[in-house]
């Protein structure tokens, strides 16, 4: 039945064509590296000249000293022999091969020149080794190697600035998807971690400040295959600088930037249209979603967690009552605003006295039992431990749980090392800013359709989300299946093009198995995109049209079966209309009694082209 070569062809043809944009501004990035190498050459001048002078003096001197030949006659050794002798003596090899025995005068000169030349060699080799150890020289070499590696990339890659916790999670996800990355990070430890990490592809990494446009350029910002820029360093200023550089030098590239500060986000938006991810802001929104629609929240976290993720549990947070928020920093403010917008009462505990006095703010250290008691936890329904200190957060949570075991506990985890402790606390909601960033960026960059789905999903309500989760579980198991998109155009779906134009292709028929059309493929269509309009979970009756884009969830084997339907004419005819048409073009020409022959014959040219 299906020709494996065709499936191959479809797999490779499916890749999105890369827009080759010529770089607008070219930054000379190698000048820094070459200047260091010139500096090294300059520094080697003195040792090398010393060596040449010492050699010349020793060799000439040895030939000038009169010696005695084998026949007892006075004889001088030649310049060549003297040079040969000095070469093996000065380099401390010491063959001891002489044309004839030296006279005392010659021995005196040789003694002198041995000391001289050994010092010369030691000086020259010592200088060279020092230079090789030199930090700036090694950095220059590393930069050159990195620049060459990036320049040789011949596939679309993402430029990842900042390989922290979030960067690492993302790199793992994208590597699993086969997406090439280029990493730039300030810390050499992190770049070493990149080398040690077990990735499928070879990810070039550079230790450098990403805020420097030269470094970004070396990392491939003006490379025609650069497909996007991710600014995920821990410093807002650096992220702003990266966003700025990318927007000014490559306005055509998508930029995703992380920040925890609203003013910085504003400044980022001043440059082009970057996607700004604020983990605190997102956590507040997620918390609100979790309160209003637990199933939607469960679906959201599952889809964002990347391929192979386990289905997270569904929380049952209290929908009314009073919340207590400890820590009124940037995080606390975002969460408070979101909770208040959701119509909930909020009591705030803040250790430091602030200028403005707000209602419901208790000033004091929340880790002290006395202060917690003032917040009257017994009558509260939820507690958010949101300070930037993990120890404080943990002790607060433990105290709160003792006071009121029914509390819904949410917390912010600051350091990755505390992960085990927070897990042991068995919290109802946990914010790990780096993970939020990683999941968010993954959802936005991996497939734009997934992001569209996530944005439109909350509007569909909780029951719909619960049904969809059930459907996904029935079809694909508890692990998140691969998400992939199909565009029904001449390239990805050549076999059904004619029927699409006639409006005869129904989604429910398309997802039948090529082995046995009575069996449905275990895939779930998540989204149908037509002319910019999105339809979530299109049903089996949906009539498909040309250039429709579909986002499917399903295992790889099911995906391959669907792809063979889209590419192979005979499979498509069987799957869609239960008709058997010959696979070869000649037999198809001969058997004209088939009612669908007209549609097939119309595309005869393209079909033979694929074979």
């Amino acid at each position, binding site marked *: 039945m299906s020709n494996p070569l065709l499936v191959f062809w479809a797999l490779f043809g499916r890749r999105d064509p890369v827009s080759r944009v010529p770089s607008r501004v070219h930054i000379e990035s190698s000048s820094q590296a070459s200047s260091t190498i*010139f*500096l090294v*050459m*300059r520094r080697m001048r003195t040792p090398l000249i010393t060596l*040449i002078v010492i050699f010349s003096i020793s060799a*000439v001197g040895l030939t000038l000293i009169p010696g005695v030949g084998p026949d007892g006659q006075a004889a001088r050794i030649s310049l*060549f022999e003297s040079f040969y002798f000095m070469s093996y003596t000065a380099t401390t090899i010491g063959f001891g091969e002489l044309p004839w025995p030296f006279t005392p005068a010659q021995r005196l000169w040789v003694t002198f020149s041995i000391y001289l030349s050994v010092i010369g060699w030691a000086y020259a080799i010592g200088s060279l080794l020092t230079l090789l150890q030199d930090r700036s020289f090694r950095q220059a070499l590393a930069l050159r190697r990195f620049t060459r590696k990036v320049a040789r990339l011949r596939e679309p890659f993402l430029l990842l600035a900042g390989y922290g916790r979030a960067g690492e999670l993302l790199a793992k996800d994208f590597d699993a998807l086969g997406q090439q990355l280029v990493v730039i990070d300030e810390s050499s430890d992190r770049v070493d971690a990149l080398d040690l990490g077990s990735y499928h592809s070879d990810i070039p990494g550079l230790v450098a400040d990403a805020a420097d446009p030269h470094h970004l350029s070396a990392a491939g910002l003006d490379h025609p295959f650069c497909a996007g820029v991710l600014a995920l360093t821990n410093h807002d200023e650096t992220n702003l600088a990266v966003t700025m550089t990318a927007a000014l030098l490559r306005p055509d590239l998508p930029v995703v930037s992380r920040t925890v500060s609203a003013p910085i986000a504003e400044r980022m938006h001043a440059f082009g249209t970057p996607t700004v991810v604020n983990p605190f802001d997102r956590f507040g929104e997620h918390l609100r979603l979790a309160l209003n629609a637990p199933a939607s929240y469960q679906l959201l976290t599952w889809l964002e967690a990347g391929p192979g993720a386990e289905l997270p549990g569904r929380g049952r947070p209290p929908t009314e009552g009073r919340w207590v928020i400890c820590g009124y920093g940037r995080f606390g403010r975002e969460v408070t605003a979101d909770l208040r917008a959701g119509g909930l009462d909020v009591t705030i505990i803040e250790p430091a006295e602030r200028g403005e006095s707000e209602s419901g703010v208790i000033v004091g250290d929340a880790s002290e039992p006395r202060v917690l008691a003032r917040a009257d936890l017994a009558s509260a329904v939820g507690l958010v431990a949101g300070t930037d200190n993990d120890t404080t957060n943990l002790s607060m949570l433990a105290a709160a749980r003792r006071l009121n075991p029914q509390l819904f506990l949410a917390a912010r985890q600051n350091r990755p090392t505390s992960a085990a402790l927070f897990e042991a606390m068995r919290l109802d909601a946990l914010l790990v800013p780096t993970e939020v960033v990683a999941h968010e960026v993954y959802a936005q960059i991996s497939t734009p359709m997934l992001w569209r789905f996530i944005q439109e999903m909350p509007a569909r309500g909780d029951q719909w989300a619960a049904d969809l989760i059930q459907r996904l579980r029935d079809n694909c198991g508890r692990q998140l299946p691969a998400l992939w998109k199909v565009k029904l155009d001449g390239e990805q779906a050549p076999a059904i093009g004619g029927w699409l134009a006639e409006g005869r292709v129904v989604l429910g028929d398309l997802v039948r198995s090529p082995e046995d059309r009575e069996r449905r493929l275990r895939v779930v269509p998540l989204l149908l995109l037509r002319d910019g309009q999105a339809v979530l979970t299109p049903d089996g009756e949906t009539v498909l049209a040309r250039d429709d884009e579909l986002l499917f969830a399903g295992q790889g084997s099911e995906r391959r079966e669907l792809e063979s339907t889209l590419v192979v004419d005979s499979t498509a005819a069987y799957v869609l209309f239960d008709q058997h048409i010959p696979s070869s073009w000649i037999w198809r020409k001969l058997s004209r009694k088939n009612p669908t022959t007209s549609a097939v014959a119309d595309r005869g040219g393209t079909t033979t082209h694929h074979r």
Partner: protein
Amino acid sequence: MNLEKVIFGFFVLLAATLNFGFFIGDIANPAVHNIYELFAALAVSLIATVLKFGDRTQIGAVHLATSLVADLQLVAASVVWIWAEEISADGIDAGSTASVVSLSGGALLANLVSVVLLVTETVTFHRG
């Protein structure tokens, strides 16, 4: 006055003069070509080459190239001399002397280009 420029000019010029001193004379007569002069020319030429390391300007690059050519020619001349004197049965004869001297003549040309470059650089140098 820049001491670095003095040393640089000294060695470039000395390489050319030594080379010229060895080259001048009947091309096939070993008596008028002193081997020590060839050795000195080679050593000074090597020093001049090292002095030209690490100059990033265009003229610096040409300087280095001429010096490398001179070194190559002089090393070849020395090897021919050694072969003739130590290895071949005939010793230093008119033919081998001619080879050595003509090779050093090539080096002389490269050294002259070096000197011309040096002079050009000095003449076109404008202060301020």
